[in-house]
């Protein structure tokens, strides 16, 4: 168990670091995929099978591909001599470090978290129960998410449409 966790966590974090730091954007995207796989593995370890598969399907199957597409469409894959980072990049890194430090200290120092001895093994709901919950308790959010996705679909399609050219007379045949 421990080994599995260490492997998954290490892979995830390493791939994440790579994804955020590599020069080639395509490599970044591929590393991102590895990160997502890693997180999916972590989900599996945590017993959330359904979420894990959903994570793979959505993040790997859709989001990563989208990112790759966008990269190709914007021709930003090519490695150029321009600086990669937003200057001064150390400030950004510092702030990120600060945030992580704060969170980690608070997590490590918190006495409120359940310890191993008091841990409760949540009865993992079956897929069917999950579906029933979605359709009963969470039906309103579900509808809202459906609406949101529809809106995003239409919005993305509209944004992606080729803009109409300024009106030029049609060429005479």
């Amino acid at each position, binding site marked *: 168990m421990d080994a599995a966790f260490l492997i998954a966590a290490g892979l995830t974090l390493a791939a994440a670091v790579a994804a955020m730091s590599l020069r080639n954007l395509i490599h970044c995207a591929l590393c991102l995929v590895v990160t997502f796989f890693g997180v999916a593995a972590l989900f599996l370890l945590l017993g959330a099978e359904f979420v894990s598969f959903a994570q793979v399907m959505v993040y790997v199957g859709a989001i990563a591909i989208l990112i790759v597409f966008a990269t190709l469409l914007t021709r930003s894959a090519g490695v150029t001599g321009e600086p990669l980072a937003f200057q001064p990049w150390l*400030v*950004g890194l510092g*702030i990120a470090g*600060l945030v992580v430090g*704060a*969170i980690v*200290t*608070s997590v490590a120092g918190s006495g409120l978290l359940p310890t191993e001895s008091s841990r409760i093994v949540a009865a993992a709901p079956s897929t069917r129960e999950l579906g029933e919950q979605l359709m009963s308790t969470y039906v309103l959010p579900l509808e809202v998410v459906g609406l949101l996705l529809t809106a995003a679909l239409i919005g993305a399609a509209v944004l992606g449409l080729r803009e109409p050219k300024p009106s030029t007379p049609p060429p005479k045949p």
Partner: protein
Amino acid sequence: MNWIVHQLWLIPALPFLAAGVLALTPRRQRAFAARLAISALAVSLALSCAAFVATLGHAGTGTFRERVNFTWFQFGDQALRLGWVLDPLAAVMLVMVSFVGLLIFIYSVGYMAHDANFTRFFCFLALFAGAMLGLVIANSLLLLFVCWELVGLASYLLIGFWFHKPEAAAAAKKAFITTRIGDVALFLGMLWLYSAGGTLLFYDAGEGCLENAALARIAGPSLVGWGTLVGISLLIFGGAIGKSGQLPLHVWLPDAMEGPTPVSALIHAATMVAAGVFLVARVFPLMKPDWPSLAGGIPLAGTPPPDATLAITWVGAITAVFAALIAVAQTDIKRILAYSTVSQLGYMFLGLGVGGVAVGMFHLLTHACFKALLFLGAGSVIHGCHDEQDIRRMGGLRRPMPVTFATYAVGMMALSGVPLLFSGFWSKDEILHAAHGWAGSRIPFYLGLFGALLTAFYMTRQMVYVFFGQRRAASTPPAAASGIRHPASGEPHESPLVMTVPLAILAVSAIVLGFLGTPAWPWLQTYLGADHGGSGGVELAKLLTKETLWLMAISTAVVTAGIGLAWRWYGQRPITDAGTPDPLQMSFPAAFRWLRQKFFVDEFYAATVIRAHAAWARFSDLLDAWLWGGLVLAVHFLTQGLSWASRFFDEYVVNLGFDAACRRLRRDGAFAAGLSDGKLQNYLRGIGTAFACLLVLLLWGGCR
């Protein structure tokens, strides 16, 4: 129970069936139409006679009354029941209606021989006959009302039979609407009766609305209940007024003469108009309730409070004279008869009011015969004169049309009440006799006498004009636009047998019928259940009592005076020219103008009721167009105005202050805006830093 009671429904059903079949019959099946209608009515007559015979055995021993009730439909958990009843009243009416009807049907075959819509005519006639017979046997006010409306419809259709004539179309409409005024009253009376008494069945094993239990329930031992009873009676009588052309609503009946003459004879003389009389006779227990039995022993005022018969008497008496007066000055052969009918119906009501069912019904029956006879005779005259209806253009017809003349004379004498031999005398005398004995007032009696005088007068006038003297035909016959195609011959001619035979039969019955109700042998009265104290046999002595003799003498004198007066004015100096003014006109020009113009009742109505209705309609329409439509518009403008005001307020009041504030704010904002340089990641940094700081603050700031 007698089989005929169970099969009584067949009597109206057969003509109805014939009407239904004829409605779907093609126009060219003329012979079939006539045969079907006549045979249907003939069977009805046979059944009616059977029914009549069935009631005979019980005459004098108490009233024969059998009924069959059935459920028409259910509403909710309640049932609406209808039924039919056979009693003497219904039986004599049945026989009368189907007998007169049959004769007129036969007569029509000749009269309408050339009409294009012959088939339709018999369809409508059959419909009428069915409805009228249904009305007669109805044991429920509702069923009676249904048939009542249906005879109205048939009347409408038949008056407007020559609908291409605008007068006919207008007359039809007028008839329907005027009677409907009465019908609304009857309808309301029916509703009131239904809700007060809980049933509309006349006789229902003691529970019917004409039987004492229900009457007691309505009336209760109180004056309020009595008032209810009188109110219901008056409303029902309102229906009778409309149908029988009594005073305020009489205007439609003369106009109804626009219909074919057989129709006038059947519907507007013999049967339908008498339905009002029949209705009052049918609900007579309601009209004249037995006060002591209803008061239930509770000592109220000693004399019974006035009931509806009071109104009936007065309306009848006044109408009798009023219509007779108008008839004196008319020149249209059928209109004279129409006003005569109105007048005679007034007599019947007078008879009902003062003497009860038997008196009124006796006159109804005799009148039906001789008035049908007169109308048919008039039809024969019109037929023979090629659609001429103006008596001033006739004259000297007794030679070319002997049969018509003879029968017409019988009818005239019956109507005028020529003593002893003719039925009109006996029945009218009966009424006068009762009026003389009426406790309420003596005036109806005098009115009745005056009416008798007038009747004799105008009938003689008409006879003289039509049959005596010399021919005064106009040079050009009136355009035969009525759709009747006569063989073109200039001279008047006698009608065919199919028309004269019914005339003859009616003439005989006009004489014979009178002997059924003479004081000496009041068979009919006994039969109808009136208490005459007689033994049922012939008692000549009754005829010879002082009062009777005296009254007979008076009426004889009156009739003689009427005939003599008319003969003096019209007969002695033969009128030679159609354009000659009426002798009466020369003597009393002002009065004659009033009479000729029918007391201006139509004009009065046109100026008041009809104009009021038109104004009301116009008002409603304008109300729609302007008030309600205007309100909508107003709301629209109001909304617009409000929004305009709101905009004004916003622009000039609210915004002014805000503008100042905004200018200041903008200056300050410019500085703040400098902080946001548009670089996204700078913002992100801000957020990140803030988040970290917040976290640190929360962790170590003591926010537990």
